């Protein structure tokens, strides 16, 4: 078995007793997997990602990251391996400048300042935002904030990347930039998104969720071209596969 992997076995979770948001989820992901998690609003995609990093621990079943069980005593160890990009960049960014925010994680992990600087520069270069290095976060546009959010996790050099709706707030050029960044990341990545075109461009495997359960797990080009399956679960074909008929039907 490869070094980097995630094992989720029969996981169920609910914020309130008797109201299950996720039910009997099982998933195995290995080192070079790129997985898109898709589903209509409120099916539990974000909640599932949060369980993987231990932001909610009251689940039943088992989650193991590289053979380490997700539980209170292992959180620091697990979180050092995973980079998590929040849906809302304003929740992710809390320092004054892009540099300070990107340097936050490497500094917390006790790296020497020279190495922190190298990692920040590298993360800025990878996301193509070196020019934003000293810019204050509150002066940034939504797209700029999203790219800085991604850079904040790249500076951790994580084994696994989890992204919750990463293409929100991005204009076409930045979206293309995001696709390039995601495709250049060689380790395991899991992307929860409504943007099926993004999933099509970046993920080889897709997990379709509905009502807190996994409905289908398979190759992206099979699932995202199955119009019937998608429509049954509140989705549509990716825009690039819908064809252009001149006017909306």
């Amino acid at each position, binding site marked *: 078995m490869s070094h980097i992997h995630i094992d989720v076995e029969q996981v169920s979770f609910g914020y309130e007793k008797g109201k299950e948001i996720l039910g009997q989820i099982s998933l195995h992901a290995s080192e070079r997997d790129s997985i898109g998690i898709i589903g209509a609003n409120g099916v539990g995609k974000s909640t599932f990602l949060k369980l993987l990093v231990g932001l909610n621990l009251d689940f039943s079943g088992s989650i193991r990251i590289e053979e380490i069980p997700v539980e209170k005593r292992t959180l620091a160890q697990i979180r050092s391996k995973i980079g998590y990009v929040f849906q809302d960049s304003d929740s992710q960014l809390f320092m*004054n400048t892009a540099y*300070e925010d990107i340097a936050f994680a490497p*500094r*917390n992990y*006790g790296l020497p300042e020279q190495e922190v600087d190298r990692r920040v520069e590298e993360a800025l270069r990878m996301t193509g935002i070196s020019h934003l290095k000293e810019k*204050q976060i509150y002066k940034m546009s939504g797209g700029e904030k999203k790219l800085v959010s991604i850079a904040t996790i790249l500076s951790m050099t994580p084994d696994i990347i989890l992204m919750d709706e990463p293409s929100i707030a991005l204009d076409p050029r930045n979206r293309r930039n995001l696709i390039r960044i995601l495709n250049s990341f060689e380790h395991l990545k899991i992307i929860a998104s409504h943007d099926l075109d993004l999933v099509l461009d970046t993920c080889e495997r897709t997990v379709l969720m509905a009502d807190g359960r996994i409905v289908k797990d398979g190759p992206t080009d099979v699932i995202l071209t199955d119009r019937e399956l998608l429509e049954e679960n509140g989705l549509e074909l990716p825009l690039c596969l819908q064809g252009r008929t001149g006017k909306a039907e």
Partner: protein
Amino acid sequence: MNQINGAIYEIHHMDMLSSRDQWVNRVHPLVKLVLTVVYISTVVSFQKYDVAGTAGMLVYPMAVFLLAELSFADSLKRLRIVLPLVCFVGILNPFLDKHYVLIDGIRVNGGILSMVTLILKGVFSVLASYLLIATTSVEKLCCALRMLHVPKAVVTQFMLTYRYVTVLLEEVNRITQAYMLRAPHQKGIHFRAWGPLAGQLLLRSVDRANEVYESMLLRGYQGEYQYMRERIGFVRQDLAYLLFWLGVFAVFRMWPVILVVGGLFS
């Protein structure tokens, strides 16, 4: 710019000032914190009629303003809410304090002197505090507090409160903007909407604050900025800066430097 946007801007502006690469900004935060506390203690320790002695203490804020290249006018503008309050505190002294003090054989109303002294003390203390936060980031200040063994829970509370103030203000801004767009003929928020709006604000702020905290946890935060201590080492210049100002405060406290210097020219 509405009031809330203005407040958010002010907070970000203070962050920007404290993150500049000025010489004073690089001085060890513990030195600046200790100096500020000693300065304020020294200022308030002057006798109530000792206007000249108290006025002499202006030397510290003046020097820091110059060293930090901060605009004095901008600072006064920022302190426009606090300064009148400080001045107002002593306004009744001329009526309450009927003593007379002899200065060079001239009888002066003690109430006026004590009012001036009180105003000077208040203004100088506010200026010193302003200079501290304008030249030191909150993270560095928290680090200095931890070095003084202030409990971790108190320091974390202070730091996160500062971070969440903007979160709260942004939520207030969103809610009031959404309200005003649908109530164009109202001057303010109708009292019937106060309850639901306050409830919404609380719930949303808690959610946002929780997400910010989660984001910190996911990037290795474990209760305090461990790395700060290593980054802000104590160097010889810090010690020299500390000793120099402690000396200046002692001299100005023990001798009426302003009167001595004035005497040289008279």
